[in-house]
Each structure stands twice: as C-alpha cells, then as structure tokens.
C-alpha cells in the first residue's frame, strides 16, 4: 500500500524537462537561495561603482573630455560595464576548482550529461538571477542617482544580443581556466591571474581606448574585449552600421572558437584526473 501523503508530497512534472533546462532551473533556485550573498555582492558593487565614479569625476573635472568620453558618457561606461561584468560571478570558477580538488567532480562524471554543457546550464541559471538582481539595482542607481543615458530602442536590442554573446565568452574563458585546474592542485593563482587579465583586457575597468597602443593591440587580438567592451560600446553608440555587425560577428567567432578549444582540452584534462579522498 502506498501512502497517500507521499503521492501528494512528491511534486511530479507532467512531462520531464530536457536535462539542461532542468539544470538551469535548479541553478536559478539555488541562486535565489543564496540571496543573502547576492545582496552582499550588491553592496560590494555599490562601493566599487562609487569609487570608480569619484575617480573619473576627479579626472574629468580637470580634462572635461578624454578620447571622446565626457562626464556623462564616462558615468554610463562605468555603470554599464559593471553591470555586464557582474552577470557572471566569480563563484563559478571557484566551485569548479573546488569540485576538482575535493573529488566532487566524480558526481558529475556519473551523470548522462556533457560536462561542459552542464556547466553552461548552471552558469546560465545563476546569471539569470544575478542579471535581474544586479541589473535592476545598477540600472536604478545609474538612471536615478547618476546621470547615465539610455540607448536607442534598436541599439538596445542589439545590446542584449551582445550581452548574451559576452556572457558566453566569459563563461568559456572561465571554464577553460577551470580545466587547467585538473593539472594543478594549486589553482588559486591561476584563477586570480585569469580574473586580473580579464578585468583589464575586457574593458571592465577602463575603456580600451585609454590603453597605450601596444596593450590596445594585444587586447584587440584576444577574446577579452568581446566579453564586456563590445556590448558596452554598442550601448554607448560607439559602434554603428557595418562596425556594429562586425563586432557581433567577432563575438560569435570567439564563442565558437573557445567552445571547441574547451572541447579539445577536456579529454586530456579528465584523463589526468585524480579523484581525491574516499
């Protein structure tokens, strides 16, 4: 005899969801369960944005305009680049690194899913929640407290597409860094370097126009600007017509290229896996 209560308690979907969609949902739920840490992140974001705000306000009160950036445009850059950057939390790499280090990865390897796609699904779930939280806060701070401008409706649509592509690129850069954790148990240095390089070269800290020319060309040939700088430039209206579509095309190419680089690295990485403990 089956107990009646169990039938009522176990909520069952009429049709099973595709596995990756289900992972996105579970990961969103988890991100919501972590809302305290999300709120703390927001507080940290506020501090960071305030610091950047005063930094640029001091510089631009002296020069009024640098490389085409006046005070309003600069504020917009700071807020939008921060918002785009915050879509993807650092937690991701740390979790991947921890799972490899403590052997939890074994539990991913006994599932009938692709490791890379399952990680993308989890990162997407978290980004959707963070996107709403962080995006809403930053947008309201930007519009009501600071003086940022809004993009034209057509540009806004392209901007959204570009954000999604930027998110994929950032995910893949992190994921590839994470794969290198298979080879070393001391991966914190690796992750920190990755974060520093990404923050600088993606344009999350300062616009790439401000770089010295050498660094600018290094950035141009790397995938980093496509993660943050491209969507922000679209928002600012810096890219128009043919340039706009070229920028999107470059983003698409980076997504495809990095996706397959990650695929190539996966096989040798998992071969050297040592599942620690137990």
């Amino acid at each position: 005899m089956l107990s009646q209560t169990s039938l009522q308690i176990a909520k069952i979907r009429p049709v099973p969801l595709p596995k990756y969609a289900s992972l996105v949902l579970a990961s969103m739920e988890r991100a919501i369960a972590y809302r305290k840490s999300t709120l703390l992140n927001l507080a940290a974001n506020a501090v960071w944005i305030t610091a950047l705000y005063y930094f640029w306000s001091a510089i631009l009160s002296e020069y009024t305009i640098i490389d085409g950036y006046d005070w309003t445009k600069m504020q917009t850059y700071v807020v939008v680049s921060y918002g785009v950057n915050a879509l993807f939390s650092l937690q991701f790499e740390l979790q991947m690194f921890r799972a490899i280090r403590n052997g939890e990865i074994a539990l991913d390897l006994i599932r009938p899913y692709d490791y890379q796609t399952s990680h993308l699904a989890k990162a997407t779930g978290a980004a959707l929640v963070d996107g709403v939280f962080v995006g809403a806060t930053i947008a309201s701070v930007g519009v009501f407290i600071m003086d940022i401008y809004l993009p034209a409706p057509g540009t806004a649509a392209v901007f959204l597409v570009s954000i999604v592509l930027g998110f994929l690129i950032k995910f893949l850069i992190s994921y590839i860094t994470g794969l290198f954790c298979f080879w070393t148990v001391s991966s914190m240095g690796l992750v920190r370097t990755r974060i520093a390089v990404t923050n600088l070269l993606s344009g999350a800290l300062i616009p790439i126009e401000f770089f010295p020319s050498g660094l600018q060309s290094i950035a141009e040939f790397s995938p980093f600007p496509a993660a943050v700088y491209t969507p922000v430039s679209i928002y600012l209206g810096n890219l128009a017509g043919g340039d706009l579509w070229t920028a999107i095309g470059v983003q698409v190419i980076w997504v495809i290229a990095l996706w397959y680089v990650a695929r190539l690295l996966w096989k040798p990485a998992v071969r050297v896996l040592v599942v620690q403990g137990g």
Partner: protein
Amino acid sequence: MIEARNLTKVFRVAAKSPGLKGAIKHLVRPRYEVKPAVLGINLHIDEGDSVAYVGPNGAGKSTTVKMLAGVLVPTDGEIRVFGKDPYLNRMENSRDIGVVFGQRTQLWWDLPVQESFRLLADIYDVSSRDFRKNMDELIDLLELGPLLNKAVRHISLGQRMRCEIAAALLHSPRILYLDEPTVGLDVSVKNRLRQFIRQRNLEKGVTVMLTSHDLNDVKDICRRIVMIDRGRIVFDGPLTKIQEAFGGERSVHIDLSEFVEDAVSRAAALLKHLGDVEVTQSEPNRLSIRFDASVISTSAVVGQLLSEFPVKDLKIEETDIESIIRRLYDGELSVDEVR
C-alpha cells in the same frame, strides 16, 4: 556483465620531503613518484550478484569502483560493463548505474530534497509515470515523506543517506555501486539501509557492489566477498565458503571466581591432550580458549575446565564472519586456508 581484466591504476604523486624546505625543493625541482593503487585485478560479476569489496584503507577499493563507474581511466587493463567500456561510453554507462559515495552528496545542498530528485529524473529522462512509481515506492520504503520539502543542509546524516540511496535508484539502474554507504550512521539507520539494499538486490535483481569497513554491511547485504590488499585481490568467493573454512572454530570464555596463579599455562597443559588449543587471558580472571570444534569436542573442553578451575561464569562462542574477516585483514589468518 561487469568484467574487468588486468585492471591497473597507477597515480603519479608529488614526492615532497616534509616542511618548508621540502616544499621549496619541490618548487625548484619537482619530483614525482608512482603510487600503484590497483594492480592487475580480474573481476567478473554476474547480473543480480551482490558483491562486497573489502580491504584495509588504501587497498584500492574506491579506485576500483571509480574505474568501474567510468570516473577514472585505468592505466592498464580493460573493463566491460554490459559489453561497453564505461570510460569511453561514460554517458551510456551512467544510465545503467547508480552510485552512492558515502562521503559525498549528490543532492543539491541548498534546495529541498525533492528538487534534487526532480532534477535527477529530468537528467535521466525518467518518464513521469516511472518517476511517480519509483518515487512513491522509495518514499514508502525509506520513509522519505517528511524530508521531501526540507533543504538538504537541514537534515541529519542518516536522513541524507536515505535520500542519497533513493537518488541513486530513481532511474532504475541495473547496477548499484555503494562506496562506504553506511559511514558515520547509527545502528538503526544502518540496519534499515542494509535491509532495503538487500531487498532491492533480491526482489528487483539489482546488482550490488559494495565497499565498506563495516563487516555487518558485508554480512547482511552480500553473498560474495572480494578481498583486496595493496591493489591485488587476495580472496574472491562466496561468503559461505569463509564460514565453512573457519566456522568450526569455537571460543570458550570462563570467568574465574578467584585468582589462579599461572592460569594460562595450567589450562594449556590441562587441555593439551585433546589437541590444538589456544589459551589467552584477556582480563586477570578471564580465560579464553579457542579450538576447532570439528576436531575437539566442546563438552570435553568445558568438562576439563570445570573440574580444574573455580569457574564463576562460562560462555561458548561461535566465530562469526566478522571476526574471521577482521583476522584475515590483520594477517592473523591466511586466505590460503580458505582456498
């Protein structure tokens, strides 16, 4: 169905001398040494079998299970599970197996238990009908009802293990690997889980492979025992065979009502004419006499002891499987005697 031939796994580990000096030395010139975990194991497990895979810590048990489950690549040798290489066909193989690692959780820590179940059902494409059927059965047998809506981090270890086992069985796998499933659980939870796993094996024909340090797990769940030591199989056979080989052994324990000088040597001299006996003194006034009951009659031993010693209390004990295995572990008994 599970077939392993010459299965070998060798890890490369950093050879660091201790301390800061060793760490710096390793930084400058890293040296590695190979650490063999599993050395040329041959294993054949039929569908519906229940196998205990036992051995001291570091013997290579978990490494073997992880290779069979497709998590680790063997350094050498070959594995076939339902005819497929579990590592090369990881995704396909994962549908046939359920795994419980006693020290890890496959449930999502911050979500209610049933969210994890639902996610797993989606991951394994379990149809709603099967999911409902399995879920109801598991809820009933493992008494999961009150736990379903609780976050995993809010339930006890014993409650979690019940959920873990349910999670491993949701997609009706044909093989269940259990890597130390009862570690850290209290006796009543252990008994409940053992009973459940045994029932799954007998009634549903789920093949069970279990590693454990708790020999009651072995005794209550498995019919076959594979013993491994330093990466090699030292015994592989039915549990009953061990019992037959050593089961004739008896121990007689006597408590003396007063102190007797040289009690051990006196008892040994007294019983010597009966045959091979082993006399030990565990406490000042307690003697234990061990002998083979198929050669020496128990009543003769007891009769002699009663006539010579001031006996207050007396207990006769059959050697159970647990103590046999423990002594095999400790090298006190040799597996050659079993063969």
